[in-house]
């Protein structure tokens, strides 16, 4: 599992295996800031394209739950935490760099 996590680019064959797991994703945003809005739409696009019906996305507004910021060690926002499958992985930014998002999620990239 860690192999898949650390070197997803070179383990394209593992994609089938990972697809069997449900992706648990948590996206932390800050209200309706431009970055947050972009992150939501970008992430939704990616999920719909690559993980259709195989993901569980939770969107949390940190403004509403400030305590969670400390608990989850949040510094930069928007932040996407992939809880499963595999090792927890953190992605920050507005998710505009699709290939990086896919790499972060452990999905293969097409290049």
């Amino acid at each position: 599992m860690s192999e898949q996590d650390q070197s997803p680019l070179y383990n394209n064959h593992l994609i089938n295996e990972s697809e069997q797991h449900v992706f648990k994703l948590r996206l932390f945003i800050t209200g309706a800031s431009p970055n947050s809005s972009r992150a939501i739409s970008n992430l939704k696009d990616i999920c719909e394209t690559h993980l259709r019906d195989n993901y569980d996305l939770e969107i949390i507004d940190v403004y509403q739950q400030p305590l969670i910021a400390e608990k989850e060690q949040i510094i930069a926002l928007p932040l996407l935490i992939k809880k499963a499958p595999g090792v927890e992985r953190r992605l920050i930014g507005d998710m505009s760099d699709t290939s990086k998002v896919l790499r972060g999620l452990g999905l293969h990239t097409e290049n």
Partner: protein
Amino acid sequence: MTKSQKKQQLNIKMLPKTPTGISGLDEITDGGLPMGRPTLICGEAGCGKTLMSLEFIVRGATTYNEPGVFMAFEEKAEELAMNVASLGFDLQKLQEQNKVRLDHVHIDRSEIEETGEYDLEGLFIRLGYAIDSIGAKRVVLDTLENLFSGLSNQTILRAELRRLFGFLKDKGVTAIITGERGEGTSLTRQGLEEYVSDCVILLDHRVINQISTRRLRVVKYRGSQHGTNEYPFLIDEDGISVLPVTSLRLEKDVSSERIPSGIPALDEMLGGHGFFKGSSVLVSGTAGTGKTSIAAYFANETCSQKKKCMYFAFEESPNQIIRNMQSINVNLKQYVDNGLLKFHASRPTLYGLEMHLVSIYKLIKQFRPDAVILDPITNLITVGSVSEVKSMLVRLIDFLQEEQITVMFTALSLNTIVSEQTDEGVSSLVDAWLLVRDIEANGERNRGMYIMKSRGMKHSNQVREFIITDKGLDLVDVYLGPEGVLTGSAREAQKLKEKTGVALRDFALSRKDKEIMRKRKMLEAKISNLQAEFESTEEELNKIYIEEDLKQQIIEKNRDEITKMRRGFEPETKIRRKK
């Protein structure tokens, strides 16, 4: 800042300040850090940045009732709490009381993928929440630069940092940001000083001659006066103490009160009353001349008057001094036991000169003695140059005079010729200078003492012989004989010689007296003899007179008888007429 300046500034609105509670730092910064603004503390690894900022938080919470948030980017909260437990800071308890909030920020580049535009709103929310939850007035971000290692987008980071400082100012918290010292002349690696423009404090940790000293300098402090020098500071069991060592003023109070030295004969030499209170006394001399004994006597005298005395020993251990002084009838133990006398023994090489000064300051501030003894200052030269020692002692004397503490230094002079001029260069600073020296003559060594100087009082210009006996110290007048100054047995010999002279003279006198007596007796006898002779001559002469008289009477009688016989009555009437 002088008083008049202070008054002027009071009229204008001054920059409000937050006291740090760190001893000494508030004096340097003239009241503390700028209130409601961020301050940058930078320095190399291990120079005490974290500790200083943490003490700022803890002191705020405990002393000034200002809750604080400590955001650690390096150490975990538990680690921090453990690290400062040795200083007596109970972070756990303060957190439970909602006075302090520790927040550990963990950033690991390997865990983070950057996928586009982001901001540090998460940090802001955390910080904002932490501040609001306990009503914090103080914030520490230690070490903010770790953000740069965790996140790669410099443009975003710099923009966000600028926003962060704006945010902190809006919150009205007094903040400390720590940063690692950068290469070359830059204060921090990431140029944080660019964002913090109000107050920058630089910490430094230097090792010179294998002795390390931490120093602090206020690089900039906008809108306030501040000390500009490098000040040494000490980290010990009470936290940090900084030393604002140079007082530029020379306007301390003076006392004309006198305190005895413990040696009555020495007091006599000093115009009969001893030293001035709050003055500095230097006792210098070659090895084994009794400098420590003089110091111990002074300590003993101070304590016997129920005053406190602090003895800094740089050569001997306290027990050694106590034992040695018992041999000259000075019992220091009793005063140690009842707390009037406190010894502090440390090797000069234990730490740097400045550190010595800091620790002396601290101990004096704690103990508040009336008199201080440093024995000997010469040993300090091993950890610094003469000029450094001098500058340290200047500041020490300065401080002690301000506190009205009398200080006695002892100094070992190795070379008598040079020493008279220099003596660690303090001779010009001290108020009184006693010199004990060897006088070697007639195959024995004796001690001579004289007062080189004593400001503001009449003092003897005589060399006295300084005697150490089982009963204690004493000074005796030396003999000025034809061969020069006489001391020791030569003095005793001279005394004996004079005694003999006196006896001889007495004898001669009594002989003369007897002679006179005899003469007088003789003459008196002669006088009585002559008188007797005179009396007998007188008697002889008187006898002739009487005989003549008698003869006359008889002749006249006879003549009358004859006349009577010739004429009857006539001669009788003649005689009657005659009668």
